[in-house]
């Protein structure tokens, strides 16, 4: 029985698809959306922008807000409630650490831009290989 589902989301369409799938495939499960902020980018500008902020937590929350807004809109459409969580760090590693305590991870297959794929490799693949719980990859 899948009762706790973790959906890691970035700003890609694949992430939206993953959340939509998780909500429709597990109508009675508690769905948690996780956003990992501050990961490596082409000039490391994102991580640095967070690190120099006077209030790092507020900056991180700001960064995650657009993603969560989209997630909530999707949840509203499905007439469901979701929990949102933020972590700071390298996406794949952070998601894997976070997966403990969930029954399933539902994740989009890849992010949309080439630079981040070169930098991070395929996060979904890494998570699928190393997560302590089953992983569903949505595309």
């Amino acid at each position, binding site marked *: 029985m899948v009762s706790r589902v973790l959906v890691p989301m970035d700003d890609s369409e694949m992430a939206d698809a993953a959340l939509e799938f998780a909500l429709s495939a597990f109508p009675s499960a508690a769905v948690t959306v996780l956003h990992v902020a*501050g*990961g*490596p*980018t*082409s*000039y*490391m*500008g*994102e*991580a*640095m*922008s*967070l*690190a*120099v*902020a*006077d209030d*790092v*937590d*507020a900056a*991180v*929350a700001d960064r*995650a807000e657009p993603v*969560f807004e989209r997630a*909530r809109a999707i*949840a509203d459409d499905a007439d469901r*409630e*979701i*929990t*949102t*969580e*933020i*972590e*700071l*760090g*390298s996406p794949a590693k*952070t998601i894997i*650490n976070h997966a403990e*305590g969930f029954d399933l991870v539902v994740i989009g297959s890849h992010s949309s*831009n*080439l*630079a981040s794929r*070169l*930098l991070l490799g395929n996060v979904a693949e890494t998570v699928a290989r190393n997560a302590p719980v089953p992983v569903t990859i949505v595309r």
Partner: protein
Amino acid sequence: MIEGLLLIGVLVAMFVGYNIGGSTTGPAFGPAVGAGTISKTVAAALMSLFFFLGAWTIGRRVVDTLGRELVTNPGVFTLPASITVLFFIGLALFVGNVFGVPASTSMTAVGAIAGLGLASNSLNWAVMGEIVTWWLVAPVVGFWVSAVIGRYFYAALNKRVALVQSDGPLVTVDRSGTLPKIALGPGTTRREMVGTTVVVAIGCIMAFSSGTSNVANAIAPLVGSGALEMNPGIILACVAVALGAFTIARRTLDTLGSDITSLPLTAAIVVATVSSLLVIGLSAIKIPASFVVIATMSIIGLGWGRATRTMRASRESISDQASDARVTVGSLAADTEGEELPDIGEEDPEDIPAAADLFNPSTTARVILMQNVVPLISTIGAYLVFRFLPVFGFS
């Protein structure tokens, strides 16, 4: 025939310059335009002017290095070879602009010319070694200088730089007297004036530094081949850069989405100053410098320095702080009221990464590695092309 080839060479060189103008204006003047301090047209004009100044005064030294010293026999720069080298440089700019994979134009240029030198057995290893040494040293210097600023001076700087824009014009000009009098506009504070001036001035320094290191990337192969004289070449490149600044740069200035154009203002000022001064310094000693790598290491240094400052405390209190952080972040982000937050106590505080962990060595290595992909491809590509395509006569 030769005229036709030369025309192609000049066009490709101008294409390179055009792209440099397009991609440099954003990072240099993005903050000033974003804050509404200057218009895009003024930004383009400043970009063109300061690029020219940098190219004319210091940039020619780098043209010398790339066009005449990196290969022992400048005769290898036949027109077709020069055009091919320029093609690789243009490709690097294209990949950077279209796919968002940053690639240093200077490193790509050196790589392509080194490929040509290797294939024709005329690479000057002493010059090459000196260039590569500086490529290693300069980013490390950029990192440490920025880390010190981030750790000890950032907070104070940030207080000074706050750019509050008041309504109305920044300055008013009173033309009633014999000499026009310039006064601060209504509501313009002294601090605003200083902040505004600094942001524009730093854009100008970046444009100047781009001129010192990038003019060579557009024209060095043609100057090396003797097809183009130095001074007309520099003017040609600057015209192309201006074209790019006035046309495609408007688009890059609009998006401002790129990782380097959306830094916090104070951080952008620090990174731009440190990186530009390093690039100008290297150009002055005839080394083609990589702004991309230096700026990235400066960004990492600043972030890391600042993050370690805030975490300067005992292990115990770091863990406390981190758990507190989770509560704050969690409660801010909690979607529905009454929903239970994850049990804080169950989390191992050691697992929660501090901001400083965002800049760990393996992440840094991966970022720098990615920035070296395009220059590497251009080096190997140029070598293979020059070595095995009989057109060039080196095989």
